[in-house]
């Protein structure tokens, strides 16, 4: 969140042919107007960032641009050729557009190799697929893009989110397209892979390719983009060569923010709420800490150092191999989430992957929020709907979910940021005193992120104990009273906070690491 001079590269000489041109595009889903008279243009040989809050229409525009869905009205052209909805992979390839979608489009039950070679597998006699050649060929593709840490024989569902994202990106890059569209490519990536991706984006641009990407991390837009287009409410509001973060946020949200992070130093810390001794299991190799009431304890480090296992183990979603946990001074055994919810002061877990781990999209906001606390408001198996309605309404208003829309609406119609708030609301209703927040701001827009920071600080102020992990180290650096840096399943460093500077956490993450 540096406020310094933007380092956006100067515009390159104007080219006559546009790589991508969309004008007057309308698109509605059910009753929701996702795009409204939207226009967009990008040139060959540029990196063009598409900025906007969740629900601004970026993802819909991308789907229209690559022919996945059709526009209700308006025209889309790729290198002067009109695009309609295309299904046939061959037709898509002719179009020269390759897209990495935000909702990962890898097929979970297929191996990495099958995913990469789905349309063009190595074939032998009679045109039959040579299954034995799939993995070597796919490994070759991965190596060509410098990815040697993913085995192409792995079933995709078994990969970490970060590695899945890398494979998804390689799938897109490997088609050597004329237009590359990357929807939130870095949301799941650790810093090292972000640099890797940036290198490839620049290489493609220099080769004359049109690279379009979206990101909620302004620093990446500043670093990478030659031009920025800002969307709000389904419409383009600006296209600029240079744009400061403050301007961008104002353009995106229509409101302006002072001070990105709330001040947490003044929050009083109380007794021990969650004490962990030598916890091990999965990637965890023995972690100990003491989390007090009113404290926001950050868990940082490079991706895949055991952060996820720590959160899941504490919530009972996976078993601990060793170690002891006490909640509010009482030793507890957590074997399943139910134990965590009931343990002493109560433990609640808000996950990163809302759709996989938290939300039921077709159900209403109210049902989703009330789900974890049904038994509290029911007797003899019947739910007291009145009590439920009032409890849900008050928390929904408190979190500003859906801008005050009816809580009977399906969660699936909400934007990503609002969906994340619904998950948080559910766990807040449990009145648990220990909150495990795992990368809750992932893929969330600036305004909602800001709301979430304020909410986290406010919860700490009310005496909740908060364990906080984020893939954006800056958040950990600015929002936490104390930061634990994990490396290879152990605590490599403990930094007093707010650290303020993400670089210090990154430095502690890689110091003495075997191959860094």
């Amino acid at each position, binding site marked *: 969140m540096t406020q310094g001079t933007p380092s956006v590269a100067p515009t390159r000489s104007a080219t006559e042919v546009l790589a991508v041109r969309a004008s007057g595009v309308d698109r509605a889903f059910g009753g929701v107007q996702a795009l409204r008279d939207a226009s967009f243009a990008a040139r060959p040989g540029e990196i063009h960032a598409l900025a906007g809050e969740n629900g601004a229409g970026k993802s819909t525009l991308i789907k229209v641009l690559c022919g*996945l869905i059709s526009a209700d009205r308006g025209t889309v052209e790729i290198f002067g050729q009109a695009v309609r909805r295309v*299904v*046939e*992979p061959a037709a*898509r390839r002719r179009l020269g557009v390759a*897209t990495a*979608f935000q*909702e*990962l*489009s*890898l*097929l*979970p*039950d*297929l191996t990495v190799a*099958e995913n990469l070679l*789905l*349309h063009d*597998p190595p074939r032998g006699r009679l*045109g*039959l*697929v*040579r*299954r034995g050649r799939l993995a070597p060929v796919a490994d070759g593709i991965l190596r060509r893009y410098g990815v040697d840490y993913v085995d192409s024989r792995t079933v995709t569902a*078994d990969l970490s989110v970060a590695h899945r994202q890398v494979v998804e990106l390689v*799938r897109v890059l490997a088609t050597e397209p004329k237009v590359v569209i990357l929807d939130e490519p870095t949301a799941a990536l650790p810093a090292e892979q972000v640099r890797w991706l940036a290198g490839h984006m620049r290489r493609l641009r220099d080769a004359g390719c049109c690279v379009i990407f979206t990101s909620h991390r302004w620093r990446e837009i500043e670093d990478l983009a030659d031009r920025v287009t800002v969307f709000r409410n389904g419409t383009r509001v600006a296209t600029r060569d240079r744009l400061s973060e403050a301007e961008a946020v104002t353009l995106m949200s229509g409101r302006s923010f002072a001070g990105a992070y709330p001040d947490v130093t003044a929050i009083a810390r109380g007794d021990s709420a969650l004490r962990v001794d030598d916890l091990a*299991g*999965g990637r965890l190799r023995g972690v100990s800490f003491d989390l007090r009431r009113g404290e926001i304890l950050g868990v940082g480090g490079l991706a895949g150092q055991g952060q996820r296992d720590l959160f899941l183990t504490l919530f009972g979603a*996976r*078993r601990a*191999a060793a170690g002891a946990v006490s909640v509010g001074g009482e030793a507890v055994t957590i074997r399943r989430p139910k134990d965590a919810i009931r343990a002493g002061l109560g433990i609640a877990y808000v996950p990163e992957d809302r759709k996989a781990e938290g939300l039921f999209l077709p159900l209403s906001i109210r049902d989703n929020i009330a789900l974890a606390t049904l038994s509290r408001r029911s007797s003899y198996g019947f739910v007291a709907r009145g009590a439920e309605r009032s409890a849900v309404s008050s928390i929904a208003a408190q979190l500003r979910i859906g801008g005050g829309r009816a809580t009977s609406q399906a969660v699936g119609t909400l934007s990503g940021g609002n969906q994340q708030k619904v998950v948080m609301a559910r766990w807040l209703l449990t009145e648990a005193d220990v909150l495990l927040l795992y990368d809750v701001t992932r893929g969330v827009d600036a305004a909602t992120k800001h709301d979430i920071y304020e909410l986290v600080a406010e919860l700490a102020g009310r005496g909740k104990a908060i364990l906080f992990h984020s893939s954006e180290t800056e958040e950990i650096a600015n929002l936490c009273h104390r930061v634990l840096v994990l490396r290879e399943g152990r605590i490599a460093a403990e930094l007093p906070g707010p650290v303020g500077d993400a670089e210090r956490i990154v430095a502690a993450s890689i110091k003495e690491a075997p191959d860094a």
Partner: protein
Amino acid sequence: MRDLLRGMSLGYAVLAATAVTYVTVYTVNLGRFPTTFDYLSILNTTLPLVFVAIGQSLVVLTGGIDLSVGGIVSLCVAVTATRVTGEGAGPFLWILVVLALGAACGAVNGLIVAKGRIAPILTTLATLSIFTGLALRVLPVPGGSVPQGVRMLLSNPNVPTGLIWLGAAVAGWLVLRRTRFGMRIYAVGSDETSARAVGVPTAAVKLGVYALSGLCSALAAVFYVSTTTAGDANAGAPFILTSIASVVVGGVAFSGGRGSALGAVAGAVALALVIDVLFFAGIDPLYQALFQGLFLVVAVLLGTVAALATRRRRADV
């Protein structure tokens, strides 16, 4: 080889356990080992289910379900029993007609599911009634026959021709698995939205699997008539549940995307063996369905426990 093992360990394990039980029960009851004749009769009576189960597994792999297999088998049995008659090439041409008819019935399912966007269970429930109704129109009372030539070729009680057809069915699957279409079946079942996003023609894939399922049902019908030497317009009904059971025992995930038709083949043979086990154990045929159901529940439970154990082991590495 990895292909053979992937996702079908449950079917194999259950088949092995059932086979051992069969041989034990048979030997204890009759005081001798089963003869070639016994194996042949098992093979010939199981083949129809094997075919239906392969077709069903293709549909289930895409995340769908095909209840209409019962109707297609009935219809094709009726047509086979009434039309596949006489000498020379005539009956064999009619067999081809029956196969085309089955595939066409399946294609109708596929069209409704893929283009009409109607849930597979509703679509095939409706077409099940339609095909069964047509079967009754063709063959109102059980009857018909099958030429000796056809019988000798398909389900010869003395020569293991059935083994060739079983081999052909397995080979057919292995070839299918090695086509782009085969890969796409898994893609659609794994995550249809994603599959569409990466350019898999999901509608065509669905149309394909339902048509293939119809074709498999037609094959089953031809073998059924050949083995029983007569037709019945209700012959297909039992195949609905047994084919689904075979697929489940065979370790094919009901959500789609995981498993193999070979597992379903193993499941089908195991299910057929269970009936023989019950027979030799002297259990009243009235309880056959009850024990088959129990078998299904136990097999699937064991499979779930095994899957959980593997997942845990993998997670702890």
